[in-house]
């Protein structure tokens, strides 16, 4: 079933989006208790790149050498970053297997991501100047506490609660997906894609990498491919309506845009609230009411609609 949510402050002002997104997602816990994920857009820290990566998944074997392996791989990631000319400013250990690194670097991002992911079990969850993707098993409050999101302020965010139907319950299968290797683009999706393998083979031949067996990953990689060929987010989302087959409502975000697209049957729900200072969208109105404690006017967009807002 899955639940998705998004929020964007139109004037670009900073808000406690970590807490707000948690309230939205927690109120939709019944739509997906398996895992929870966030794509948060924070305040740029002196132009640094921020990379969130993990060195193990939920299903990775916790054998005797596990802790030792994590330590070795962590050192390896940092030395590889340094060897590419990145100067690391800060490394935060969020959990024993998930890290946040901020660094200065102006080379090729794909090269950097590929080099990090060449390390066994390593996955770059997000890479960008404002985007940070946080995802793990459990409900929103669990992930919020585990990753200390209450201090996170920013301009816009999307989130996802997952009920796994197409692939395993693990962090690689959790949303949001980063549009590898396109910095600051992320996607959450509610639905199923039926032409997954066709697109996966096509995109793999074009040099894109897939880290999971989850069909939703296609959307992020598809948008990245379109945008790398010069399309805007809105154009890429419009073409996805014809190219992707299945039932879907998805939300895509860039560093200053938030867009939503619905399939031609309007099979998956979406409730939209729009005011002068903020736009909030979610699978259920109860999620929007979790951050706006008053009666609000909302509506459900129709089939084949693509809506994009700027901050």
């Amino acid at each position, binding site marked *: 079933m899955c639940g998705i949510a998004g929020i964007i402050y139109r004037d670009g002002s900073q808000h406690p989006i970590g*807490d707000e997104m948690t309230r939205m997602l927690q109120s939709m816990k019944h739509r997906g208790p398996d895992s929870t994920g966030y794509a948060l857009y924070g305040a740029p820290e002196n132009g640094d790149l921020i990379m969130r990566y993990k060195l193990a998944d939920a299903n990775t074997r916790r054998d005797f050498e596990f802790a030792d392996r994590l330590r070795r791989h962590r050192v390896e990631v940092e030395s590889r970053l340094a060897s590419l000319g990145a100067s690391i400013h800060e490394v935060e250990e969020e959990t024993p297997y998930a890290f946040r690194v901020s660094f200065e670097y102006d080379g090729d991002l794909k090269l950097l991501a590929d080099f990090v992911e060449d390390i066994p079990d390593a996955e770059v969850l997000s890479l960008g100047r404002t985007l940070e993707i946080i995802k793990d098993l459990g409900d929103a409050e669990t992930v919020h506490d585990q990753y200390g999101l209450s201090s996170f302020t920013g301009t816009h965010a999307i989130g996802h609660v997952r009920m796994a139907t197409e692939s395993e319950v693990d962090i690689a299968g959790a949303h949001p997906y980063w549009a590898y290797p396109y910095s600051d683009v992320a996607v959450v999706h509610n639905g199923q894609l039926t032409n997954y393998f066709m697109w996966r083979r096509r995109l793999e031949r074009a040099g894109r990498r897939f880290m999971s067996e989850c069909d939703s990953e296609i959307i992020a990689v598809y948008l990245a491919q379109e945008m790398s060929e010069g399309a805007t987010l809105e154009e890429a989302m419009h073409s996805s309506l014809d190219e992707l087959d299945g039932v879907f409502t998805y939300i895509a975000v860039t560093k200053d845009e938030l867009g939503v697209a619905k399939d031609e049957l309007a099979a998956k*729900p979406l409730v939209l609230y729009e005011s002068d200072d903020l736009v909030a969208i979610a699978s259920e*109105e*109860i999620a929007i*009411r979790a951050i706006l404690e008053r009666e609000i006017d909302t*509506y459900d967009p129709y089939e084949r609609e693509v809506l994009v807002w700027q901050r």
Partner: protein
Amino acid sequence: MAAVGERKITYDARGLAEPFADVPKISEIDGTRARFDALELTTRAINLELRWLLYELGMKEIEIDNPGSKHSLGVGILTRCKITFNGSLGYFGCGLIDGPEIHITGRVGWSACENMMSGVVVVDGNAGSLTGAALRGGDLVVKGRVGARSGVDQKGGTIITLGSAGSMTGFMMQRGRIIIGGDVGPGLGDSMYDGTIYVAGKVKSLGIDCVPGEWTDADTELIERKFRIYGLGSPPEFQKFVCGKVLYNYDSLEPAEKKLVL
């Protein structure tokens, strides 16, 4: 960190939510009228309170403040009464009801009034998809717009929306009427068996076996009467759509009747 009115909900081994919840009994009661605030209550507590008021105290008019878009409120009410929700409902609001007159001042989510048997529901705001799914009787009036697949599998009653409607409206409907004051999306009345759909605005496309119907005085009378009853102003001009009856073949006679005829 808890959302509006959200409490830690316990589940038993069967997965039932709050199996041992108590009736909150917080209503202000005045004769046969009652009113309560749902802000701090869970879905189950609100429904228990509602049932207590209706079935044990025999209340005739109930007002509920701050429903807060919670799901499954006011379901399965099988008695004549008046209920007002001052606010919006979530999914499955007022489903499986038989008899009540319900007024919702906000909006409703998906599957509102699913399988309603009789009564009246008036929604001041918008409605989500699957509004009035499998409706059996009664009137469902939405003053805003409705989502996709309204009146899917409708078997009776009337759905009125003043705004537009989404795709596949009246999908597989079998009886009853849908009156749409605005535009309607693609696949109108797809695979319908019977019943009538009236549209005042533009139709994006007709579904399979849905065809324009012949307007009669009975149609004019129905539209005018419904608009008068619910105070919806003077009705616009409608187009009528019915089933073309070429998609399916079946006898309208029951097997026993068939035997008799033959």
